[in-house]
């Protein structure tokens, strides 16, 4: 496992992941949720290009490309898109990375089919 490996909250009772993070599993209400490595492969479901932000952290960095990705492990996440806009259905790899102002964020990079 490297620093590039995606880690997600994972329920030890039902062995399913979820997002955003919770202390209780939304599938089985199990109480033992741990962060563990997850398959970052997924598919772009929707895209947006931000031209305006209320947040002073982001406002200087417009435009920003953002997507909803359905990960193969069964969760969906909003992510930054590296390297410009992607089309719906594009296969991507999601890894932990940095947003434009340096904060931790999930980033999708176009990737080969699984």
């Amino acid at each position, binding site marked *: 496992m490297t620093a590039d490996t995606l880690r997600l909250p994972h329920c030890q009772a039902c062995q399913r992941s979820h*997002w*955003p*993070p919770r202390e209780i599993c939304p599938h089985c209400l199990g109480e033992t949720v741990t962060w563990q490595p997850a398959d970052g492969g997924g598919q772009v*479901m*929707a*895209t*947006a*290009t*931000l*031209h*305006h*932000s*209320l*947040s002073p952290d*982001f406002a200087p*960095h417009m435009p*920003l490309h*953002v*997507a*909803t990705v*359905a990960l193969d492990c069964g969760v*969906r*996440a*909003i*992510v*930054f898109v590296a390297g410009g806009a992607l089309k*719906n259905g594009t296969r991507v790899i999601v890894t932990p990375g940095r*947003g*434009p102002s340096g*904060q*931790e*964020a999930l980033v999708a990079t176009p990737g080969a089919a699984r």
Partner: protein
Amino acid sequence: MTARGYEGVAAAVPVTVPYARRTEHNVHWWFGRALSELVRQSGIGKDEIDGLITASYTLRPDTAVSLTEYFGLTVRWLEDLPMGGASGPIALRHAARAVEAGDAEVVACLPADVLGGDAFGSLMENYSSFSRDGAMPYGEAGPNLPFALITQNYMERTGATREEFGRICIAERHNGAAFPHALLKKPLTMEEYLAARPIAEPLHLYDCVMPCSGAEAFLVMREDRAKSRKLPYARILAGIERHNAFPEDGVQISGGWPVERDALYQAAGLGPGDMAFLQAYDDYPVIVMFQLEGLGFCPAGEAPAFVRETDFTADGGGLPLNTGGGQLSLGQAGAVGGFVGLTEGLRQVTGQALGIQVANADVGLVSGYGTVNFDRGLCSSAVILTRGEGA
């Protein structure tokens, strides 16, 4: 599931406190203006109000409880709704059931919010834990990003075009031009709509509501009280709510209305074709399309064609939509946006429109939607209103 109607219950005295882009007042003043208008217009004394239901994002650290002391109200039924844009129809159905059951005699339904200037940004930064963890790190504290994603996916799936969204916005502006309290009264042309600057593509400026301050209000009581006070009133034929529907959908393509639609129309004994108007939640035009589909005005995925073929102006003889101009004309005063359609619907069925009065507005549908906790609005609601005796 079936829904049950509300026997002998009246909704009356729709109040809209004129909105403002900037205000020097705190939110309590806006609540107070709405409450004093209810008392003034109804002749029902403050001491007769024994139920209170509120909705507000900016009342914190105060709550509905605080308002009882602030305004000197002594109530035996009290509720505070966190459902944002869905809260109007929900307030009505909760209050109507309480009055029907005898738990309260007169319920004041009061939303108010103060959201000009920096207040909108700070509200959005503290909106929900999932939004803070899962959406805000991606460039935008606020609803534009989730609704851009929802809109883009909908356009891809259905072939919806910007022109079709524009038709909704332009019709609402036509209606809003006649509504005295609308902040945006200038007619909008398709050229202007299409040429607007991008905000969060595919959303452009005129797809987005303008944050502002405002308050709305109405009263719920027994019909006999409304009659004895000679108040024009509406009856509630049916009401539904549904939260977190279809959680497995990767991107939201519907609110909760399809789950409850049959129960709603069955309880009313009516169908979508019987509605003289639709007051739909319009934070973004794609959500109006969700309601046209979810409430059965057209099949799922076919709202773009329906929008092309339908006249939504209040005086156009088609399907009058957001007859007071909606939030796209009034501005969005936080949770108050969830009541805009309801007070307008009450005015229409009681023949008290402040702008364009829809012809033969005997029965109409009011729908709500709201609360983007992460990437979609979780709350959906709807009520069917009809003209009461003496209205």
